[in-house]
Every structure is written in structure tokens, then in C-alpha cells.
């Protein structure tokens, strides 16, 4: 039985809606004077971060603490990992300390999958972003944000995103956010369009359950939500696009472009934003931009995932396809 959250593709529609509904209840805890629940008392969770990501780590940590789990933060920098200790040894060291779950961020695609399926440890594994592969809790918090804004906070309970048109713009090739979102949004019934220069679209994308376009302007009027991905300036040096200026002229979201979106449509960004590159300050600071909401929603979603995976004697979320297959034990 699957006890892990490795990929958004592993979630069924019902699993995903259940997580969103649970997160909706978790969100209400944030409005109370005591923002804490006793649910995971006595459970130990380690945040195993091989890559710097203060935002994601803090979000998980807040979620863990609100559920009363004992939290250990492990950052690879300055640790034995930087002295050459392997992922396996690190994980086994932590497990020996009695860890119930490992929240892992790793630069190598598939590292969380390996951790969960190689017989190295017994703890539950939650993927907090691996290489250019997956970032399932990000996709969940994005879907949560969309459901709240496009369906409604209460009206959304039990609902998916059927018929919503979502446009994701930017560096799809190097983006785990794009991959996770395409998987999850498709499962939830949304129609996804990816927009990027052809150099930033992966070869083999034709099997993804989405449309691909090279033209931002023609997709904007048909979008209920537009998600801008961060574009790292270093990509310019690898000839993915000629200049920053050309990139933002062709694929950046500014006020004029935002005006072409439907009235109700929202602008999303997983952060951190590169203002002036993929998004202008005018758009980033408008009420249609949900960046700050996404951060708050991230805590609720992570609380829901932690509760559903660790709150009982077995996980409440079963996966559509088993991810643990024929690995050695």
C-alpha cells in the first residue's frame, strides 16, 4: 500500500478533491486564536532539504507545527552530505532516530521515489520538489487556489475544476511545477495550455494531457487562470532565448496583456517572481494576482496532506497506480 506522496500523477480525482476539501477545513484553523491541532502529537517529521528552498521549507514546517508534530530540519549545506554522505546513509541515519515521515527536497529528479521505493527506510516520503520532475504539494495548492477563486470557497467543496481553462507560461522544460500542475489539473478536469518558446518545451511533450502553444496573446482571452513560471536569467546564456528583453516582450505578462484576459481570470505564480522578466510589477501587485494567497494556501494544503498520510494508522489517500513496483527490498 502506498504511504507516500511522490507525484501529482499518482493522485486520483477523488483523492485530489478529498485533499482540497480537507485543506479547506485546515484553512479555518488559521483564523482561530490558537492555530494548532493536536493531531500529529508524537509523530516526528524531518524536513530533508538537499536544495535551498526557504519558502517551501517554512511552509511545511508551519503545517507540521500546526498539527503538533515534532519537526527536525535538516539542510544539506554544512552537513555530512556536503562531505559526501549519500542520500541513503542520510535517510537511514534519520530513520534510526525514529522519524515517521520525510519531507524531501532534492536536486535530482526521482530522489524521493528512490527514497520511498528502495527499501532504505520505512518512513512515509513526501516530495517537496525533485529536480525537474515533480512538486505535488505545489500543484495541490495551486489547484486549491483556483478552486477557491473560480468555483468558490464553500461552493467548491466536493468539486473539481471541470471545464476551467488554465494557461501555464514559461520555462516548462525545467519546471517541476509545470509537470505537477499538468498532471493534477488534468485529473481535476481542467483544460491546460502550456505556452513557452519552443526551446523551453521538452521533447516528448506530445503525450502530456495538455495543449502546447508558442503564442501567449492568442491564449489569454481563453484563460480562466494564467500561471507564470519563473524564468531564470541563466537560461539566456544557454541560448534558450536571445535576451531578457525579447523574452519578456514575447512571453512576459504586463498590464496590457492582463487586460486581454477575461474579467474573472486570475494571475498565479509559484514564486519567487522575477519582476520585469516574466511578470511586471503592475501585474504582480494587482488584486488579480494570487501569489500571496498561494503562500497561505500552501500551509493548508500541506496540513491536509500530512493529516491524510500520517493522521491515522494507514493513509487515507490511495494512489491511482502503485508507484512501488519491482524494486529490490
Amino acid at each position: 500500500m502506498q504511504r507516500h506522496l511522490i507525484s501529482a500523477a499518482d493522485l486520483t480525482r477523488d483523492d485530489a478533491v478529498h485533499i482540497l476539501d480537507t485543506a479547506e477545513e485546515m484553512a479555518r484553523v488559521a483564523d482561530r486564536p490558537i492555530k494548532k491541532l493536536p493531531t500529529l502529537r508524537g509523530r516526528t517529521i524531518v524536513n530533508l532539504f538537499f536544495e535551498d528552498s526557504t519558502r517551501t521549507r517554512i511552509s511545511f514546517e508551519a503545517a507540521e507545527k500546526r498539527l503538533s508534530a515534532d519537526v527536525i530540519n535538516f539542510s544539506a549545506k554544512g552537513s555530512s552530505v556536503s562531505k559526501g554522505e549519500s542520500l541513503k546513509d542520510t535517510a537511514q541515519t534519520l530513520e534510526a532516530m525514529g522519524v515517521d515521515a520525510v519531507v524531501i527536497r532534492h536536486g535530482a529528479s526521482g530522489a524521493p521515489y528512490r527514497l520511498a521505493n528502495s527499501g532504505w527506510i520505512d518512513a512515509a516520503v513526501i516530495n517537496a520538489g525533485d529536480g525537474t520532475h515533480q512538486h505535488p504539494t505545489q500543484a495541490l495548492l495551486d489547484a486549491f487556489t483556483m478552486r477557491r477563486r473560480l468555483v468558490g470557497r464553500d461552493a467548491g467543496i466536493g468539486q473539481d475544476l471541470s471545464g476551467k481553462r488554465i494557461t501555464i507560461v514559461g520555462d516548462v522544460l525545467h519546471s517541476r511545477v509545470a509537470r505537477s500542475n499538468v498532471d493534477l489539473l488534468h485529473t481535476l478536469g481542467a483544460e491546460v495550455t502550456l505556452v513557452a518558446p519552443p526551446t523551453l518545451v521538452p521533447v516528448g511533450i506530445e503525450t502530456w494531457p495538455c495543449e502546447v502553444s508558442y503564442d501567449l496573446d492568442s491564449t489569454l482571452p481563453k484563460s480562466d487562470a494564467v500561471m507564470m513560471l519563473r524564468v531564470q536569467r541563466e537560461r539566456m546564456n544557454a541560448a534558450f532565448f536571445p535576451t531578457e528583453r525579447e523574452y519578456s516582450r514575447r512571453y512576459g505578462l504586463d498590464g496590457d496583456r492582463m487586460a486581454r484576459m477575461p474579467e474573472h481570470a486570475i494571475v498565479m505564480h509559484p514564486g519567487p517572481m522575477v519582476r520585469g522578466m516574466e511578470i511586471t510589477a503592475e501585474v504582480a501587485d494587482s488584486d488579480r494576482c494570487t501569489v500571496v494567497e498561494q503562500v497561505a494556501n500552501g500551509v493548508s494544503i500541506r496540513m491536509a496532506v500530512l493529516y491524510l498520510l500520517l493522521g491515522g494508522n494507514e493513509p487515507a489517500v490511495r494512489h491511482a497506480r502503485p508507484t512501488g513496483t519491482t524494486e529490490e527490498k
Partner: protein
Amino acid sequence: MDTQASEARPVLEGPDIARVLTRIAHEIVERAKGADDVVLLGIPTRGVFLGRRLAAKLEQITDRTIPVGSLDITMYRDDLRMHPPRALARTEIPGDGIDGKLVVLVDDVLFSGRTIRAALDALNDIGRPRAVQLAVLVDRGHRELPIRADYVGKNLPTSLRETVKVQLAEEDGRDTVLLGVKQTASGAQH
């Protein structure tokens, strides 16, 4: 549990339940000296419906709006590790909160008392009521904690082999309380 319901015997029918709730409403008004600071909090699922019905009756008696809400105790249960995680229900605290108020918790069946223990913990994280009271439709005995109800619709002496199932129109299509016999090894309803 549904299969047992078909073989179970009704111990309270629709009119009985309505009558019992009316009586409890009057008792609340009497004991709370007019019920002007009462807040009703139903425990999901059926306690919420009972809470709303009680509030309606209190409003008839007092001619005032009675704040009513719901209190989900799932995250405070002491048996979380014994089952898969349960779906969460809504906690809805009325706008003025519960600080300094008389909170009456409403549930359908009082059994071991563990649900109410969890409800008291949950309440503690939400505010500081002046006092907390408990209203239940059925008290079937077999307490495992030092907890008692302030308002009881019906005391129903049962054996541990028996099940008590409350059905309400809002959820089940009809009002009734059924007494049956446990057929599986798994726990009773309440």
C-alpha cells in the same frame, strides 16, 4: 451498520424526537435563566442537525436569534491512530465567538464520553466559554470517562452488544432512534 438497522427496533419515533427536543429547549431556557448568552454547537454529523432544531425551538420560546454552529472533533480524537484518517467535517463558530458565553454542545448519542472529551479539547483551542453544557438525544450508558450530560432526551439502558443508531430527516430521510444487535467484531456506532 445499515444492515443492522433493518433488523433493529425503533425506540424513539419522529414525534417523540420532536417532543424531546422541545423539552430540552425549555430546560435550557430554565437553567440558563433566559438563555441570553447561549451558543449551541452541534457535533457532526447528526449533532449539527439537532443543534439547529434546538436553536429553532429556543428562538420560538425566547423570540431571539440563538447563535448556532458546529464543532468538528475529528482532529482531537484519541483513537486517530486506530483507524485511517477520517474525513473532516466543518467547524463553524458563530460570529460573536464563544468567549464568556454558555456553550451547549449537542450530540445524538452519549456513550463512552470520548467524543465529548475531544469536543472540550477542541473548544479550548477556540475560546473560553463562561460554562459548557451538554445536550444529547440518547444516553446509552457505558461511560469510560467522568463525563455526564446536562440535558438528556432519553436514557436508554443498553448492553455493549447492542447498537444505537440515530436517523434524522436531514441526513437519513426520516427521524428515528434504532436499537439493534452488533453483528460484527468492529466497534459500535457510539
